[in-house]
Each structure stands twice: as C-alpha cells, then as structure tokens.
C-alpha cells in the first residue's frame, strides 16, 4: 500500500467531524467547538505530513479511483480523486485557514444562539471545499460544488431572523445556481465530446486533448465557456461581482474565511484544474485575460470609493482574483498558486481585524490629518472624474443589472401565468401529462418532425410551471407541487429521446418524488399548527419549529438534486441523454434546473427564515 491510497482520508476526516458535530448537544459550546477544532487539527496535521511526504517522494501527479456510484453501458458516475501541486496548495491553505478560524470562533461566538449551527455549517463547508479541491473528475467536483453552494447559503443567512441576511443569501444562491448549471452543461458537452466521463488526469495527456479538440472545436469552446461561466460566478468576476460584498452578513470570522478567501478562490481552482483542456484554445485564453483585466480595473475602482470596511476588502479581493485569472490564462500556474495563498491569508486577516479599523485609523487621522489628500483621480478631467465616481458608487449597476436583465424578465413571464391556480392546473396539466405519457408509449403514432419537437415542447411546458412556481406569491403548496411537476415533465420530455431506459427515470424521479412527498407533508403539518401561510412575506418559522424546518430543508435538498438523493446522479444522467445537437432542449432543461433550485430555496427562506411574522410588524425597519 502506498501513501497515495490514503488520499481519501482528507474527505473522511471532515465527513466524520461534520457528522459528529451534528449529534452534539446544542448547549455544550466546549464540546461543539472542540469537535470542530479537533477535526481541523487532524486535517491540518495530516495534510502537512502528507504533502511533505509527497514532495519528498518526487511530487508526482496521481489519481485515485474510488467508488462507482452508477454505471450502464455508456455512462459511468464515479468518484475520483486527483493529487498534484494545485491540490496540495489548496489543501494546505484551506486546512490552515479553517483551523485558525475555528480556533478564533471558539471564543468569538460564545453565547451566540446559533453556536452549534455555525460550527456545523463551517465543517459542512469545509467538507465541500475538500471534495472540490481533491476531485479527480467533473462529477466529483460537482458534489463538492453543490455542498459549497448550500453551505454558503446557510452561512450568509446565519442570522436567519433578520431580513437582509436572508435576502442576500438567496441572492448569492441564485448566482451560484448559474455557476452550477454552467458546470452541468460543461459535463454534458464533455460527455458527448469524449463519449465517456473523462478524468482530470486524462486531461493532462496533451496529445489526446489536442486531437479531440481539433475535431470538435466548437464543442470544445462551448465546454470552456461554460467552465469560465462557473468560475466567474464562483469567484465573483464580472458580471457577478456584486454578490461578494453582500455575502458579508454572517459573523465576521465566517465572512473572513469563506467570502474573504476560500470560497471566492474556488473559481480560480476550477480554471487551474481545467487548464490543460483549454490550453490550446487561444480564444478562451484571451477571453479569460480580458475578463480578468476588466474585473481588476472595475472592481479596484469600486473598492476605492467604498466607505465600509468589509465591502472595500471584498472588492479589493475580487481585483486580485482577476489578476489570478490572468496569471492562470498566461500559464503561470505557480505564480497563481502563490498569489492565491497570499491573497487568501491577507484578506482573511484583514477581515478578522476589520473592527480595529476605527481606533487605528482615527488615531492616524488625529496625528496626520490632511484636509484632502490628493488621489490619482484628481488628475482626471472633472466630468470624467465625477462620472467614474458615480459609476463606482453604484457598483457599475452590477447588482441591479442581474435583476433588470435576468430575474425581472423571468418574473414578468411568471406573472403572466397568474391564471394558473390549483384547479386549472389539475384540469389542464394532468390530462396533458397523461396524454404525453401515452404518446411516449406510442411514439410510432407521431410524425418524425413531431418526434423531434416533442421533447422541446414538453420541457417548455415544464419550464412554464417552474416560472409560475418561482413567482408564486400566495400558495406555498402550489409552488411546491409546481416544482415536482416540472421534474416530471422534464423526465417525460427526455423519455422521447431514443435509447432511454425507464430505470434511469426511476432513479431521477425517485429522489424528487420522495423529497416532494416529505416536503408536502411537512408543509401540511405546519399549516395545521400555524394556519395558512402565504409566500408574500417572510415568516421566520424555524425559530418556533426547528424540527419541521430541518426536515423541510432536507426535502428541499432532495428536490434540488443535492448529492444526498439519487436525483443528483439522475440529473446528470438526464443530461447525458440530451443529444449534442439538442441545444434548445439543453438550454430549457438547464434553465429549469436553475429556477427549480431557486424556487425551492425561496420557499424555504420565505416560510422558515426572515423576521418572525408574529413578532415583527409588516412595515417596520427591516434593515436592522
């Protein structure tokens, strides 16, 4: 046995730590933080020894094939790990920072109502981080990616009884969701490109990659673009940058480590990891450099006008990540890694000591005040100077842009569907679904053209339902059922594609239906206790019904295809049946997935988070 095979312990340590932390008594601070501290201490210690040994034995890149979760003739879903220089750096930096912040938080969070929840979520986050950074193929990476998304949502909304943290958590989740789908599409295209699920290790085989891409240059560019989309969303590059400062809603240590350092550098990791794939695509490299450069310039400008310390650090960090993107695209891997580590440490520490800024800077000012220190901008012509200032102050409209051009049109579309209510839904969609099901059994009855179009039509019908769910303002249960129905329509749509095994649909829908059922029943139970609840405002019910909230959260995870349910593999599988020429279908299904996740998280947030509707007036100041 070589030390290589021990690699999965870096997954197992956080898993065990996380599970143990879940069952500890809520009131015992010492035990909870002790468990987290021990987990991270073991991880850090083991990682240090492991990396030292690895360097000593020649620092060779290697992969470890773990378990195969699903397999049929043409599709394999397996968990793989890879270890190389990139992983080593991310592993060490992540372990060290999380270790230190865990130690920091032991005292810092004393007497906080969510003490246990904080450490649970932190360990969960770290588990996602480990999965992502150790992953050996896109599927494994995606497992970690999803964990990062949901734990980020929970960390940002740590103060779940307040309005802004919840609102911003949903906002960040929606951006992450775009990144998720970018990754799904990349996996889909890559599956068609290689005809198999390729590992990162194989990507290092330059000849193989080069040959393959020569024949399929378009699909190659598509994959790279999707990867870039995911990386940009996760690393808060343009046009997504505005989520990062808004993620600073939790306790300072969690903002410091996750949004100041680890979480935002995951996009850079994705680029580093896939570099061999797009190395020969000059267009993509130029695109990344341009994006990085633009981000760097714009966010530096925004950072310079910030009057709050955390948003200043956030934007300054984004600017550095822009530079890291450029370094990666130029092929300076080592420099990029060095830069990542330094930036992560620097921003974490700056955020941790950010409250000190008042006494420090006021003292500085007291002794060395100059009425107006000149800055570089003073040399601009006045009109340009003022215009740039206003733009930076408005964050170049980045935050409103996502609303204006993406979410609002979707909401508008959803609002057009207001005629759908529970009864009409039954009257139309159920017979239609039955008809569709019948048609699928009798495909020979349909003309060839119709057969081609059917999946798209059915998937579109499904998409309509999720639009409606996403904008639903009243009935919680209707919104929930609409999401379930959306998945059924997608399953039906895909079934029209040839060579489809109904067992795969069972795999896909089993998770959805079980989670959907559980979610529906919990909602029923909640209604019996609390009376009817509408989606028009926050209710904050997790405070009074923590158990129901937890069960419902698990149901939500099941519904969004989180790696606890077979749907996670099912989603990937469904995509593998979308042919490479069916871009419309892929687009519709992926948009459905984005909105499904959002609709579900929105339901959870509205019902269980935010200010409690019993103790908080509807029109009071929500910005506390």
């Amino acid at each position, binding site marked *: 046995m070589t030390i290589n095979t021990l690699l999965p312990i870096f997954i197992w340590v956080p898993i065990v730590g996380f599970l143990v932390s879940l069952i500890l008594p809520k009131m015992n*601070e010492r035990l909870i933080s002790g468990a987290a501290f021990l987990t991270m201490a073991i991880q850090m210690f083991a990682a240090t020894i492991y990396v030292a040994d690895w360097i000593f034995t020649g620092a060779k890149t290697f992969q470890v094939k773990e378990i195969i979760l699903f397999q049929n003739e043409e599709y394999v879903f397996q968990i793989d790990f890879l270890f190389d220089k990139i992983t080593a750096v991310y592993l060490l930096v992540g372990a060290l*920072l999380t270790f*230190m912040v865990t*130690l*920091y938080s032991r005292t*810092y969070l*004393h007497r*906080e109502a969510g003490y246990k929840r904080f450490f649970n979520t932190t360990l969960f986050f770290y588990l996602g981080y480990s999965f992502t950074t150790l992953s050996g193929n896109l599927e494994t990476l995606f497992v970690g990616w999803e964990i990062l998304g949901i734990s980020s949502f929970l960390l940002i909304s740590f*103060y779940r009884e*307040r309005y802004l943290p919840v*609102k911003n958590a949903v906002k960040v989740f929606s951006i992450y969701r775009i990144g998720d789908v970018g990754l799904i599409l990349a996996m889909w295209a890559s599956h068609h490109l290689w005809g198999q699920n390729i590992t990162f290790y194989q990507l290092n085989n330059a000849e193989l990659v080069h040959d393959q891409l020569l024949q399929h240059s378009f699909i190659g560019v598509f994959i790279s673009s999707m990867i870039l989309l995911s990386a940009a969303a996760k690393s808060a590059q343009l046009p997504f940058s505005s989520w990062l*400062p*808004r993620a*600073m809603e*939790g*306790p*300072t240590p969690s903002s410091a480590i996750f949004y100041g350092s680890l979480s935002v550098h995951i996009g850079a990791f994705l680029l580093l990891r896939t570099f061999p794939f797009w190395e020969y695509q000059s267009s993509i490299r130029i695109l990344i450099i341009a994006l990085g450069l633009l981000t*760097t310039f714009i966010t*530096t400008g925004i950072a*310079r006008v*910030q*009057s709050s310390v955390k948003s*200043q650090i956030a*934007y*300054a960090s984004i600017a*550095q990540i*822009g*530079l890291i993107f450029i370094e990666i695209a130029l092929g300076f891997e080592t420099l990029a890694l060095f830069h990542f580590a*330094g*930036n992560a440490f*620097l921003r974490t*520490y*700056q955020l*941790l000591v*950010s409250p*000190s*800024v008042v*006494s*420090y800077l*006021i003292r500085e*000012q*007291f*002794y060395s*005040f100059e*009425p*107006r220190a000149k*800055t570089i*901008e003073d040399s601009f012509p*006045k*009109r340009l*100077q003022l215009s740039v*200032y*206003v733009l930076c102050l408005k964050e170049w409209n980045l935050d409103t842009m996502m609303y204006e051009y993406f979410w609002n049109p979707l909401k508008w579309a959803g609002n057009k569907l207001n005629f759908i209510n529970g009864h009409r839904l039954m009257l139309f969609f159920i017979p239609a679904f039955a008809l569709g099901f019948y048609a699928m059994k009798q495909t020979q009855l349909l003309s060839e053209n119709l057969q081609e179009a059917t999946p798209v039509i059915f998937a579109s019908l499904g998409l309509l339902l999720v639009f409606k769910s996403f904008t639903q303002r009243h009935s919680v249960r209707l919104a929930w059922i609409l999401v379930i129905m959306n998945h059924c329509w997608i399953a039906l749509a895909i079934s029209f594609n040839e060579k489809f095994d109904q067992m795969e649909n069972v795999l896909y829908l089993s998770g959805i239906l079980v989670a959907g059922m559980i979610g529906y029943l919990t909602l029923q139970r909640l209604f019996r206790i609390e009376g009817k609840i509408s989606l028009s405002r926050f209710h904050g019910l997790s405070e009074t019904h923590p158990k129901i909230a937890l069960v419902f959260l698990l149901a939500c995870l099941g519904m969004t295809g989180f790696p606890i349910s077979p749907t996670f593999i099912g989603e990937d599988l469904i995509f593998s049946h979308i042919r490479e020429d069916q871009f419309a279908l892929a687009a519709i299904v992926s948009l459905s997935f984005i909105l499904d996740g959002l609709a579900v998280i929105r339901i959870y947030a509205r019902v269980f988070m935010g200010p409690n509707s*019993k103790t908080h*007036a*509807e029109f*009071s*100041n929500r*910005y*506390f």
Partner: protein
Amino acid sequence: MQHKFNLHQVIHELKHFLPAQAPLMDFVHHNTLHAFQSLPFHEALETAHVKLGYQVYFSLETFRTLHQAGRISDEIIDRTLAQKKGKDQEIWKGKLLHGQYNAMKSARVGAMRGQWKKQYNIDLDALVHPTLFRLLGSYLDQGISIWNFPIDDLSFLAAIRKMETNSWVSIFNKKTSQALLLDENISIQDILKLLVGKNEKNYEQYIYDQQFAHQGWSGMVSTVEDLPQTLLDKRQIKLEEFILLELILEFDALNHKIGSHWKPLDEHLTQEIPGLHDPIVKSELLEVLSLWQEAFEWTYYDQVLKGLQAERIEYLAPHQKSFQALFCIDDRECSFRRYLENIDAACATFGTPGFFNVEFFYQPIGGKFYTKLCPAPVTPKYLIKETGENKKREKDLHFSKHNHNFYSGWFFSQTLGFWSAAKLFINLFKPSMSPATASSLRHMDKFSGLQVDFDALHAEENGLQIGFKMEEMANRVEAQLRSIGLVENFAPIIYVVGHGASSVNNPHYAAYDCGACSGRAGSVNARVISQMANKPAVRAILAERGIHIPETSIFVGALHDTTRDEIVFYDDQINSADYKSLHAQHEQVFHKALDLNAKERSRRFESINSKETAESIHEKIRIRSVSIFEPRPELNHATNALAIVGRRELSKGLFLDRRSFLNSFDYRVDPTGEYLFGILKAAAPVCGGINLEYYFSRVDGEKLGAGTKLPHNVMGLFGVANGIDGDLRPGLPAQMTEVHDPVRLLLIVEHFPEVILKTIQKASDTYEWFINDWVKLVAVHPETQALFVFEAGAFTPYVPLIKSLEVIKDVESVIERHQENFPVYLINQY
C-alpha cells in the same frame, strides 16, 4: 379643517425622536428614549412602544421565569399591587401570573408608507436605501475610502447637485427626477405633493415613516447637523436635505418601476390609518408589564436599602490615614476600592466624577486636533498641551490603503499575505499588544509633561486659554475637595486615579472609557488636578478659604485600566526618598487589590476559571484584553443599578457586586446642599443616562441596541451596520448588555430629606429625572438612618420588607459560586 404642514416644526420634532448617538469615537452614554423624558417613565415607555414599535420591558414570559427562579419576590409583588391597585390586588396578581395576552400590535410608524407595498407590490426600501445610504456614507466618510467624495467644499445636497450637473452618469433612473433635484427652488412639500397627494395632513406621518425605516442613518445626519465638530473631517449636512433627496429617490423608483401607472398615496388611504400623535389607548398588557417591572426593581432595591440600615460591626479606622485615593464614581471602581480598604484599613477612598472638576481641551504632542476632556455637555475654555519629545507611532500595514489597489495589492498579497497568516497564528496562540489595540495608556505618554500653568506670553490658541491661572486652579481644587468632603486630615500621599480601558477589535472602544471625560481615559485630568493641588500658591489660596493642606501631603495622578486591571502612577511629583519608599509600599497594596479585583471580575467570564489564584487569573485577564477574538474584553457598566451619594461609611461592609456608582459626599461639609446640587446635576444625567442606555439596549436589542456585534461592519469610521446595505446601529451591542438586568437606577443620597428636596428642585431639567421616575431617588437621614422614597414630588418613609441579609465571611469564596447576579450581602470580616 385644512391641516397646515409646518416643515420647520416637523423636522425640529423629528430630530428630537431620532437616535442622538454621536460617531463612535465620541461615544457617550445617554438615555436612549430622551425624547420621551418629559413624560412619567411608564407612560413614556408605552408611548414609545405604540408610536415607534420599541420593546420597552422584558417579555411577560421572561418576568414569569424570573419570578419562578425567585428573582422577583412574591411579597414585593403583593406590596406593589396593594399600593397601585388597592382592593383589586388579587385580580391583578392573577393577570400578572396567568393572564393571556395577544401578540403585539403593529406600531403606528410605518403604516402609511407601507401602503406602497400593499397597493403596488413595490419595495421602496429595497430600491431607495442602497443608493441613499451609499451616497450619505461616502459623503460623511472619515477615512475608509481611498477615493474620497469628489466634492468636499459644499453641503450634502449642493454637492450632489453639482455632481449631477457635471457627470455623464446620473444617480437617478429618470430625467424627471434629476430635474426635480436640480431645481434650486424645490421644497419638500412640492415632492410630498407628488408622492402623498394634496392633503397636507398626511405629510408629517409620511416623513416619520420614511425616516424611521432607517433611524440609524437619519440619527447620524441629525447629530452631525447639530454638532459638526463631532467629525474630525467636518461635513455640512442637514436632515432637511437628506429627506429631500430621499423623497426624490422614491419618486424616481416609483416612476422607474411602475411607469406612470401610480397615483399619490392619499388616493389609496381608504381606511383610516391611526395618526402617529393620536392619544394613546392604554393597553392592559403594558400595564401588567409595568407592574412586573416595579416588582423586579423593588425586589433588588429592598435588599440594598435593608443593607444600608443594617447594623454593622463598627471598627475603629485609624485616624491617621496611610493614603487617600480619589476615584471616578464609575461602578467598575466599586470593588477595587473595597479591596484597597480591606488590604490597608488605614487608607481612605473617595468617588467623584472622573474629570476631577478640571475641564479643558487636550492636545497631545503632534496631535492635529483638540480632545475634550470633561462631561459632554460642558464646553471648556481652556487648553492643556502635552510637552516633550515627539513619539513615533507604530504602524500596521494591514490597515494601509495600498493593498486595496490592484497593482500594489498584487505585491502586498504575495508578501504581506504570508505574514498575515503568521500574525494570525501568533494572535491566536499568544495575543499581545499591537498598533491596532485601543489602549488607555496611549492617551498620554507617562514621561511627557503637561502645560498646566498659564503663561502670559502664550496666552491663547484658537480662542482657548492655554493653562490655568492660580485663582482658577484654586477654585477647581477647592470645589473638588469640598464636594467629596475631604477638607481635613490629609494623608501623606493623595492619589487621584482616573480610569480608561484597553481593547482590540472593538469599534465601541470609546464606550469603555470614562464617560465624564467624553469617552476618553481620565489620566490627563488626574495629573492636571494633582499638579494644581501641589502648587504652594494654590494651597495658600485654599488656606485662606479654610482648607489647610499640610506641606507633608502630596497629590499623585494615576490611571486605572479597567480592562487589564493595571495601574500607572504619574509619580514624577514624588521627589524625596521617604515618599518614594512610602509610595512603593502603597503600590504593593494597589497591585494586590488589582489582582483580587481581576479575580472578582473573572466570575462573569466563561473562559476563566474563577477558582484559580488571583495572580494567574489576572494574567488571563490581561491576555483577554489584547485578544482579537474576544468580543467581551470587559463588561463595562453591565449590571449597574445603584448610585450612592454619601459618606463611604454608608455602604462600607456591603457587598454590592460592582453594581453601584459611588460619589463621596459629606452632608456636614455641605449643610445647605450647595455642592450636592452640583453632584446631582451631573449624577442624574450621567449615571441615569448610562443606566437607561443599558436598560433599553437590553430590552430591545434589535431596535434600541446594536444587536450582536459579530456581523458588524464599520461604516466611514463613524458607525457600525450589519452587512454592507444595513442601517446604522446605534446603542450598545448585545455582548455588552446580555448580563445586564434592566432596572432603573436607584439613587441614594445621604442628607436630610428637606435639603434634598430643595436641591433637586433648583433646576427643572434635573428635577425631571426624579419627578418623572426615570431615576428612583431615596434619601437616607444622616442621623437616624431612616429611609424616604421620593414619590410624586414628596419623600415618604420606607421600611424594607426583607427580614435579613445573608452575612458572608469572605468575598473570595462567594465570587467562586456562580456567574449570575448576587443578592446584597453583608461582609463581616472582623
């Protein structure tokens, strides 16, 4: 009847209701609900609750839990109800213990503006606030941003107008909104007419709704308008301009989101919305809560008053004093003084407001500004300058603005970044003092001098007299000594001990320092008064006035750091070898007392085991003060509940658990209440203000307090908010108030009731505190020890209900018992 809207008057009143907290560096405690102080306490609280939606008492469940735990006594409930409800006593007891009440109703404020959401499903707050807060924050910013607000010589609105005229990019979405802003003649009424409609009777309420949707920011605007000097980098802003801009932004948001399909609000006000200032309909729940509150307070007061009357074994203190020490009245000095007196029975301690009756501005060497060192309402005419060598200040590159630019940041993150990791590691395992620490010692260098004497050659600077003339010094020293009753029997060394605090990662650091010195350390004041009292010329004048300070007595200034429990003596005044050795002996006493004091404080800290030795605990307390991960370096004034104005003998031998302000006063020196007036005039607003700020931050941590400090984000160096788009959070963070019991201050004065009555009636603003019950006043008859409670304008006799108090042998074993508040104990150590 046509309702006329008077803008000037509405804004004037609104400013009164908004939070009045100054920027962080000038944090001074005050009554959070000062706007309601003209009403009796309970009525004021109900009014604030109904109008503005504040929580004003503990919840009913909390009171009931406290009752079950024995923290609210049954006998006291019965007595309270008997007094207030007479024959209905039993019915009310049932209501207190078992009454069922519906959850709270919505507050009045917010209902009218909330109609936008109801009618148009539009969230104006979400559309307007981010832009508004950002503009305001950038304009007021004191030094966080690198690129400052580009127009610095104009007032807020004028600057924004100039920006709009000269920029290609507008802050608005619509041209029409920009046109409104640029119209110099536009008034708030004009825009209100567009938004709310023609009916002026709704205008006032709309503005309240709008401003109380972000009371923190509005309060800051209002404070800076009234006190521009509160920002070092001054700004001109008016609440009126701010409201005007917000109204235009609202108009812009409505047009942008709904287009032209909206009508002024009053066309939608079909059902009557209760007027903000309509008469309050009394609610039974609030009355029940107020009765609980009374019972809660009197359960504690009763023990204290019993304790004052208790027979204590009189021991004969030596007439010849070893040393005397003047401290601030601060409740944190209460236990320190007890330990000093225990260790050295021949010493005597006194309490007095910590600016020691010398009021001045202070300018350290190299300082570009003056710092006020006296209570906030006083404006001094004097300036004290530090003299000596210029010192180097340590820097920390982590706060440098260079690492926020991408080019220098590229370099910094790859160099400094790795040092950050090391630094964090060291900070976690071995915390130590750093440039980021706010330390009381930095206030004044121990080895520098002070320009105390007036010099005719350098008489003035910016309208302030530099130094004091002899006569002026003598007046201050005399008043100080007489007010505490120290007019004879002077010890060889008289220490004057100011206090300050040290903390790190704490934006509220100023709240930890001395309130009587405007949120600064009291070291300069302690040193200044000592130097004054040591001057032969001053003593000669004092002798003429009947205070004979012998040549053998010297005054020595000192600073007590309440976080670290350390003391620094400014002993440059001690020259002779005899006194040096005497001082060395006393230093031992101080250090031992500080160890024990640290141990007593540690019982509230989870991370320290209070059973360890005093020395090792003290070391942990010191480390705690410089730990960046410690949100509670000390607990400040938490649990404060009492203020005792009288001779030390009145409360000596009582274990008051660090809950009392102690102001020395001898009725024999001041038979007519002349100095007493000075004391009460300061004690009511200062101690009462601290007490009520803790009270309200505790009962409503969400709206009146600052909530938990963990997610706080520093805005412009003047305030904190949650996240980046939040409202400013005035008030105290939960970490400061969580152990506080919200009870009003019980002010106990040792003098004849008739003298006290006359004294408090001398000034109406002082009298308001007592007649409206914001502070409870009790007189102790100096000859008979009889107690009198001030109620409805008169003193009525009071007999404690509790039969006896527990007697404890030594304090050390008691403080190891538990973390919660203790009842009052009698200490019998002899």
